[in-house]
């Protein structure tokens, strides 16, 4: 009996193997090798993936499970504002909400991070000093990514210099769709280096990659290049985060850990507006990759309006009745 593996083996990440940077050095040595590797990953059957996500969407999460899920979801929110009209005042008000989302109830957990443009990272850093809430900044010519490598790297260094400890970069979708995988890989490697100690989230913009096969390949590419998180979307393109695309990315981080021992996080972003949506994502995490990913260090929800719905549902569980939108703060 050589082949019956303990199903916990893969999930626990205990399979012996080389660490990151060694296992797959070979596949990134040339464009051809990287292409062969990415195209050799098992395909994703669209119908099957969507059916699986839909089935998990029917899970009924009630009472104590719902309370746990709401608090967990709040602690995973990257509270985001990415508007041309953003001001220091707006960012400070968001930071206040991030550290204490429900002013009437101190038991509500703080969110994971505030996500802003790089020039406002300093404002956020100052407002969040000593709170444990992270400052995430989008960079690399977000959202399109259409700028030269030098500009993108300068963008990253600027954001880190302003105090961001998490960088949300976008990949060059044009290069990816044209099949220039090594170019995309090298850019992520360069950005990772420019991040220094800051965590790197790599936005795939799956709405522009379109197929699930591409989402899986782009996830692997980003992980090979050193991503700490893979993120679905900028939020500027529709469709943004969907359950099936999140499923495919979760499968990728699961398989990547089994192969390398390194655990990469996942961040769906854009389009998650309701508590129901958020809980569906948590169910997806729970039943695809398990409890190891059910923490803000490994799973984030990029959203702006979601937080208020989570708070309203939280109040409903506590008091037994729904309050109106005036019982949560406007952003």
């Amino acid at each position: 009996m050589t082949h019956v593996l303990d199903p916990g083996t893969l999930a626990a990440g205990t399979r012996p193997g080389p660490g990151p940077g060694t296992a797959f050095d070979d596949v990134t040595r040339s464009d051809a090798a990287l292409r062969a590797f990415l195209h050799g990953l098992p395909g994703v059957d669209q119908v099957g993936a969507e059916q699986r996500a839909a089935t998990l969407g029917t899970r009924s999460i009630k009472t104590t499970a719902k309370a746990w899920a709401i608090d967990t979801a709040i602690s995973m929110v990257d509270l985001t504002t990415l508007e041309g009209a953003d001001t220091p005042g707006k960012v400070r008000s968001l930071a206040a909400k991030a550290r204490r989302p429900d002013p009437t109830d101190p038991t509500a957990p703080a969110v994971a991070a505030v996500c802003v443009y790089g020039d406002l990272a300093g404002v956020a850093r100052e407002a969040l000093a000593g709170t444990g809430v992270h400052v995430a900044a989008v960079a690399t010519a977000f959202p399109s990514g259409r700028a030269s490598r030098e500009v993108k790297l300068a963008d990253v260094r600027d954001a880190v210099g302003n105090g961001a400890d998490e960088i949300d970069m976008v990949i060059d979708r044009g290069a990816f769709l044209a099949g220039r995988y090594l170019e995309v890989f090298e850019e992520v490697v360069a950005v990772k280096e420019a991040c220094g100690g800051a965590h790197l989230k790599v936005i795939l913009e799956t709405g522009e990659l379109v197929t699930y096969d591409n989402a899986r390949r782009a996830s692997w590419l980003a992980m090979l290049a050193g991503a700490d998180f893979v993120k679905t979307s900028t939020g500027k393109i529709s469709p943004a985060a969907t359950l099936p695309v999140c499923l495919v990315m979760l499968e990728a981080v699961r398989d990547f850990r089994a192969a390398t021992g390194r655990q990469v996080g996942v961040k769906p972003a854009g389009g998650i507006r309701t508590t129901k949506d958020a809980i569906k994502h948590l169910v997806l995490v729970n039943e695809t990759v398990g409890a190891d990913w059910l923490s803000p260090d490994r799973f984030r929800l990029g959203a702006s309006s979601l937080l208020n719905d989570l708070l309203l549902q939280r109040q409903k569980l506590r008091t037994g009745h729904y309050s109106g939108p005036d019982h949560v703060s406007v952003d």
Partner: protein
Amino acid sequence: MTSPLFEYAPAPESRSIVDVAPSYGLFVDGEFVDGSGDTLKTVNPATEEVLSEVAVGTEADVDRAVRAARRAFTRVWGPMRPADRGKYLFRIARILQERAREFAVLESLDNGKPIRESRDVDVPLAAAHFFHHAGWADKLGYAGLGPDPRPHGVAGQVIPWNFPLLMLAWKVAPALATGNTVVLKPAETTPLTALLFAQVCQQADLPPGVVNIVTGAGETGRAVVEHADVDKVAFTGSTEVGRSIARAVAGTRKVLTLELGGKAANIVFDDAPIDQAVEGIVRGIFFNQGHVCCAGSRLLVQESVHDEVIASLQRRIGTLRVGDPLDKNTDVGAINSAEQLARIRELSEIGEAEGAHRWQPACDLPDRGFWFPPTVFTDVSPAHRIARDEVFGPVLSVLTFRTPDEAVAKADNSTYGLSAGIWTEKGSRILAIADRLRAGVVWANTFNQFDPTSPFGGYKQSGYGREGGRQGLAAYLKGASH
């Protein structure tokens, strides 16, 4: 945060929507009447609680039902304008949808299947079968089965316990759409949704005698099949009983269709979409606790991906939620009866004794009721009984192959031929392999998908005749060939 684990709280569907009477009679000529024989108890297999007592139809009861069906055929249903027959079927379909939750809860109570399946599969598909056939009622001349196809008359139908309402729909809808009347015998362990369907017939004002439901066990079924005034016999169930029915109707004028057992091969090639293939394997064998005649009970996996697929499969099986069928988060429910549980246990023990390796996930099973954990046998040889006999439970046998030819040879090496699955990203391979498989239904990159427009039926000892689609109509029409 109190715990790092996401534990789902119980989410039971309320059973208050169903109103189970302490006892039921037979549904004959549009009314519930007392049976002239014994009664039998029907239990909830998840708790062993007695749900109700139902009549055991005797030969005299069956005779009464057949005479009612004949009368209805001659006087009402046969002469009726086909479009009007269609109206009744549409009405039944709508009522099934309106009362869907009631049917789903009752089905899960009586059968043990998870409410998620009865709610999302059994009941919607049953309604879909009535809608589909309602549309055919006035278009039979255009079905390619001859210019003026005629019904046989009285159809005697015997159905199994694995999909009580859905199998009723598969039998009753085409029979009524084609102008036949029906005497139906539901399974001994799962009569309740058929009796609720009888109430739906009353609610729909279906003319008396068009549908008659006679509950009971094997002897009642035999009386239906052997009644001299039955023109058409349709049976779904075990190959053993199917054989005796074939013997009983041989030499009579009765027309027969049989949908019997299966031992489907689910073939996974090395270029398959592995994550979805694993989902398909799980759906293939653990859907409805494996109580599915077309279940993918033999996994044929290419040797080069065997370890990867099995590891992935075991991890996935570890997440299946086994337990209370009425909990909305349950994936695998109760085994339908003590008798079936004994058979599953026996075959599993034989599997181990023959040298296959049994794997089961850690799972807590309830103390009462009939339960068997999801089970995978690896190192199975085609000579093992668990690779040949239909287990009809949540038990998967894993075999391997090296080449496409070997896959086809092993898949066809069965006395059955009901269904098969092919998993590969290569479209040309799907077509080439499907062409060579001796199976009535072949799924590609999916499994256990059903639709009323698609004919279903088997080769070899899986039976003959088709249900669903145009071909399914032919079984209920005189001289129709497809």
